């Protein structure tokens, strides 16, 4: 699949934003005072909204984006749109109440946390529902998206709390969170090795229905040039460098944040350092998400020559 920057940015950034919103809502300790009550939710909202806005950049008609709220009964994309807006509105009210009263309303916060997690789940389901892309079509896809989102949120929340508290204990949980999220991604990668169009029963023979006669190969594409389908769904560049890029993703997204969090924990340093861990994790996730798209094979490639297309 074509790794569109707008969609990579959307999934990573709004994932982190909703992760932070979930942590705020769930009542993670955060600094007190009006400035904190404004800037921390503003940062979370900004990340979530920036991601959502970037996702409209790949639309042909962004001015009609509001129409995407209508089909929540059948479409995951629509559901995600609806729930993200509801969650953000509730989060706005929560923030207002926090700023005015200095108190965080727990029941509302918990509701918002659930809304955030569900929003991230629905984002992932847009991809996981695609039977045409076997790599994505697994329950591990939403699990990875959720764990990365919550880990991002946790690192950032614990990091920001470093302004108020000297306790380094949250770094211990950060280590665990990062490790679990990447363990899930590792499982996803392992599974991707054994899932393929062929394993799902789709071959050039089944695509053409000619399998009962013999082995099928493409002789000629329908046209000499490219088309929308070959641009959008038949991307082969990514697969060549996949191994190297995975190492980069792991170094930035897993090794560095783990080292930072372990350092904070071991030396009882300020959790402010976890903000840095968050930033490198995000960098790693951009690479991870690029691969998520670039490595994925779409069934239509079978009509354009299969793996070598």
């Amino acid at each position, binding site marked *: 699949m074509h790794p569109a920057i707008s969609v990579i940015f959307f999934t990573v950034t709004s994932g982190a934003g909703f992760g932070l919103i979930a942590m705020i809502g769930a009542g993670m300790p955060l600094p007190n005072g009006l400035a904190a009550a404004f800037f921390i939710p503003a940062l979370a909202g900004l990340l979530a909204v920036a991601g959502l806005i970037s996702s409209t950049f790949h639309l042909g008609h962004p001015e009609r984006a509001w129409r995407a709220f209508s089909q929540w009964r059948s479409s995951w994309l629509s559901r995600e749109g609806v729930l993200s807006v509801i969650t953000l509105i509730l989060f706005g009210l929560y923030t207002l109440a926090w700023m005015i009263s200095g108190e965080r309303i727990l029941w509302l916060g918990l509701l918002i946390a659930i809304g955030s997690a569900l929003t991230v789940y629905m984002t992932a389901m847009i991809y996981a529902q695609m039977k045409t892309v076997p790599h994505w079509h697994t329950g591990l896809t939403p699990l990875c998206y959720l764990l990365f989102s919550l880990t991002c949120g946790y690192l950032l929340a614990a990091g920001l709390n470093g302004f108020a508290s000297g306790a380094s204990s949250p770094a211990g949980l950060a280590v665990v969170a990062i490790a679990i999220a990447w363990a899930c991604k590792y499982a996803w990668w392992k599974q991707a090795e054994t899932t393929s169009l062929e394993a799902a029963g789709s071959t050039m023979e089944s695509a053409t*229905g000619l399998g009962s006669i013999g082995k099928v190969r493409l002789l000629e594409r329908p046209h000499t040039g490219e088309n929308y389908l070959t641009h959008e769904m038949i991307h082969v560049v990514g697969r060549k460098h996949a191994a190297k890029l995975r190492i980069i993703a792991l170094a930035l997204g897993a090794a560095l944040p783990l080292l930072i969090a372990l350092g904070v924990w071991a030396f009882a340093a300020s959790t402010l350092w976890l903000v840095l861990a968050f930033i490198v994790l995000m960098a790693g996730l951009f690479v991870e998400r690029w691969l998520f798209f670039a490595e994925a094979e779409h069934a239509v490639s079978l009509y354009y020559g299969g793996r070598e297309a």
Partner: protein
Amino acid sequence: MTSLPQTTDKALGLVIDLDTCVGCHACIINCKEWNTGGYGAPLADLDPYGTEPVGSFLNRIHTFEVSPDNAPASIVHFPKSCLHCADAPCVTVCPTGASYKRSEDGIVLVDESMCIGCGLCAWACPYGAREMDPVENVMKKCTLCVDRIYNENIPEEDRQPACVRTCPAGARHFGDFSDPASNVSKLVAERGGIDLMPEMGTAPVNKYLPPRPKTKPESASSATAEAVTEKPGGFLGWLDQALEKLG
């Protein structure tokens, strides 16, 4: 509505005969000609005379080579347009309601004025039957020529899809699959019509007729004419002998 209808009154679609198709691309051209002026936005081309032409088409012809174990390979031209699936995944993923399947005849259409051009439906289609128009940025797909088949302003013989009407080989047939007595249902029954990628669970309406078995080369050689061994007589005989002496 992007929920699928439980059942449709009719199941209109195409039968494509892979035995007959000669790969002339006439159906593509007539499809583009009709649909660029018909339903929805025109079908655009970018850089049509340049080095990298791209454009939206509702129908494309691939060419495959199929190699049986015990016979030489043969070439199969393979036209592919939307299969108007009964369980169309392209419809249910659509966030706007632009994509829908009609309950009256099962045709899958895009209401282009509602389409936001997110491209999700093209991802959901295993067959590559949907293409984004590069100029209008809305999703284009085969309409089963909905603006011809019910069109009372055109002569009756033209009230069938443009691709079917134009095919010089008669490789495309249009009809109602829900009626077991229809021309298409009979063709499917007689010739063993098949579904493409049944494992995707899309339940396509369009069916493909596999190529008929080719004559085997052994039997082919035994059928060739015997070489002429008789000696000609008369003037031809004299000429034959004279020429042989010369050379």
